[in-house]
């Protein structure tokens, strides 16, 4: 049987030379992302803004979205966002935070039920008060910051500081781009999105660590090799794994996008985007950054003086 090979065995691509292109490119799309984040802003869900989300499904065949919109606007509950989704007459209504603190939110569901209760089945009701939404914002930000710090510390212990810095630069790059993705696509940003972001952080680092592991190994093995060449060699030798894992992960995510239902869909899109940029940043950002940080393996400072002795050993290999 002829087996599939995506990356040929003798691939040796000059990735490091690409940094003159990839750095400005990344800088540009990061700027666009930051711009989109501030100019367009995120489409925050009620987890973070507080408010009421109601999903209902028609009991009478076809949902009349126009009349739902009119009736919802007449409820006098401030701005309401009405959306039709799925293909079986499902409608979602999103109301902002009502005045009157925690107690003020409770009236919304009752009013909506009174208006639509006859023709629609209520499939999902979520009410988030002002205090809880504030706390969710806090824990969301805290989670992302904490995970980056924790990983930075772990990598610092496991590798050298240059590697930790390189990994964090790449991760921040992914984070900025993911925020840009949420701003441009206007996919709803909620607690599930925080889960997506943390998973992207985890995935991107996973990818980076695999490349870094190889760099460290080769740094020990070929002490004389110019750093750029060594990085190229490391990336090329792990490239086939990097691509394989991106493909299997994307296949799983694709299944989620196509069949996982509406809640999972936005999460999965963000994740697919994250897998692509996570893979890109491991190769084109994290590794080349090491050139500028002067990556070395621990113990090298002493060994540098006895380099001639080492050289004979490495040529013997």
């Amino acid at each position, binding site marked *: *049987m002829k*087996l*599939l*090979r995506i990356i040929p*065995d003798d691939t040796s691509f000059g990735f490091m030379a690409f940094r003159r292109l990839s750095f400005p490119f990344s800088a540009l799309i990061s700027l666009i992302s930051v711009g989109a984040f501030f100019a367009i802003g995120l489409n925050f869900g009620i987890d973070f803004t507080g408010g009421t989300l109601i*999903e209902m*499904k028609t009991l009478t065949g076809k949902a009349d979205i126009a009349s739902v919109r009119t009736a919802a606007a007449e409820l006098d509950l401030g701005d309401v966002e009405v959306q039709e989704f799925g293909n079986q007459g499902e409608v979602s209504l999103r109301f902002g935070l009502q005045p009157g603190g*925690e107690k003020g939110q409770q009236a919304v569901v009752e009013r909506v*039920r009174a208006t639509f209760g006859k023709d629609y*089945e*209520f*499939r*999902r*009701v*979520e*009410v988030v*008060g002002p*205090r*809880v939404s504030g706390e969710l914002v806090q*824990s*969301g930000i805290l*989670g992302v910051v904490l*995970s980056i710090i924790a*990983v930075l510390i*772990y*990598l610092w212990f*496991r590798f050298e500081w240059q590697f930790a810095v390189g990994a964090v630069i790449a991760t921040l790059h992914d984070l900025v781009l993911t925020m840009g993705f949420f701003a441009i696509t206007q996919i709803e940003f909620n*607690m*599930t999105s*925080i*889960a997506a972001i*943390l*998973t992207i*952080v*985890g*995935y991107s*680092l*996973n990818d980076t*660590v*695999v490349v870094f*592991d190889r760099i460290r190994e080769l740094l020990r093995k070929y002490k004389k090799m110019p750093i750029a060449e060594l990085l190229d060699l490391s990336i090329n*030798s792990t490239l086939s*794994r990097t691509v*394989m*894992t991106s*493909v*299997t*992960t*994307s*296949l*799983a*995510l694709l*299944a*989620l996008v196509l069949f*996982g*239902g509406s*809640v*999972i869909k936005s*999460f999965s899109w963000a*994740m697919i985007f994250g897998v692509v940029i996570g893979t890109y940043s491991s190769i084109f950002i994290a590794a080349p950054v090491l050139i500028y940080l002067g990556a070395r393996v621990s113990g090298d400072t002493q060994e540098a003086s006895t380099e001639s002795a080492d050289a004979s050993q490495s040529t013997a290999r």
Partner: protein
Amino acid sequence: MLRYSRAKIAAVLFLAVAGFVYSAPSLMSPETRTALRESTPGFLPSWLMPHQAIVLGLDLQGGSHVLLEVDSAAVLKTQVATLRDDMRRILRDEKIALAGGLAVLPRGVSVRITDEAERKRVVPKFRELVTPTSSIMGGGGQPAMTLVEDQDGLVTLSITDAGVTEKIRKAIDQAIEVLRRRIDALGTTEPNIQRQGVDRILVQVPGLQDPKRLKDILGTTAQLEFRMVAEGNSSSPDVEMLPQTEANQPPLPIEKRVIVQGEDLIDAQPGFDQRTSEPIVNFKFNIRGAQRFGTATSESVGRALAIVLDKKVISAPRIQTAITGGQGQISGRFTVEAANNLAILLRAGALPAPLTIVEERTVGPGLGQDSINAGKIAAYVAAFLVVGFMFVTYGLFGLFANIALIIHVVLIFAMMSLIGTTLTLPGIAGIVLTIGTAVDSNVLIYERIREEARQGRSMIASLDAGFTRAFATIVDSNVTMFIAAAILFFLGSGPVRGFAVTMVFGIVTTVVTAVTMTRMMIALWYTRARPQKLPF
């Protein structure tokens, strides 16, 4: 690489079989599971017999998640009021007449006692309030109150932060008991009621059709009072105007004095009035309540008696005759459901303080089932795609990886069933995602084996080097994933936490299945087939 002790092989096989056995109950009917549990021999711990199905989150089985917050201000207010009453009682007992009276502060009560002899008598009594008997378990050894004596005779008792926290903690404990009684009375299955943080209670009730009823039952304090309707002068300080529950009815002047309270009820049942066949609530007092009620009604025949629930008048019937039997009925133009609810609330008792709903998430059973179906399809499709891709890329080795992958997913389910963690919709997404990432360990190993083989090593040396060298990378790369998932677990709530759980379990099992199990399969294959070159 090739030598495995029988014990090691047995251990791995046992793990795989245990995975299948413990995840199996999820596919059985509830009856079979109960039968399995009951057939466990007495000398075995019950978890040993596989009978636990995976627990589905509310977003999958449908149900309501309600987060309630106790009104801390109200708790403090009651606390200050109790303190004021206690101090007033002491002053009365000591027969001390005050010029200025008691001053109620936001966090305490102060009183000016100018006469030094009187002050000497009273202050030790006040001190007894400050060191209450609850010091057995008191708020971490910190005093609940402080007493300060000024030079000009001003004595101030203030409630400390520890005192307030302790009181809120107690209020939450009481409220949880009351809520449990109320929800049990609704007849729902397996409600989950637990404290969250300092001043919150999380209530999770699966499979409820009508969350409005649940919220009505949770959000009512249910402080029932029997008080006289004031006659004549309604501007007296002992009278207050209270609204009526029935719409479009004017407020009534009600005496502040409470004759009997809800805590003196021993039973309340919904019923129908024999004459009007209107829904009513029949109640029964304890002995103390019956006595007080008897005395009050016999003294006030002909007057109106107000039944007040949470500062609203339900009804104010006229007293026809003295009611001495300790039984009575509340009528108030109820619907059948309202009468039912009121009976439940009265039986369960009043909440120690008002609770406010700060978060509510309800999923209907229809949507839950749709989500399960969608998740299943996505999981099958993902598994099919990944398994197929691994096979066309690595052939026989891909097959080994795929067997390990299946055991990996089964182990996640088994662990979740055994530990009893909840499977949520994001959790399903997490499992599907681990289907994609679990094979990463295999990919790392296989690619490494190929590299080693290309460098001219023998087949067995390449296999060995591949596993050994890739292992360090597998650990490093999984630790980073693990950190992200663990942080998500501690910060997330509900469904998102379910995602973190499956990710964490997935990372743990992948190291076992993708590394140890595939390694054994390859070793067995190698010793049997003695191949000359790699099959991929």
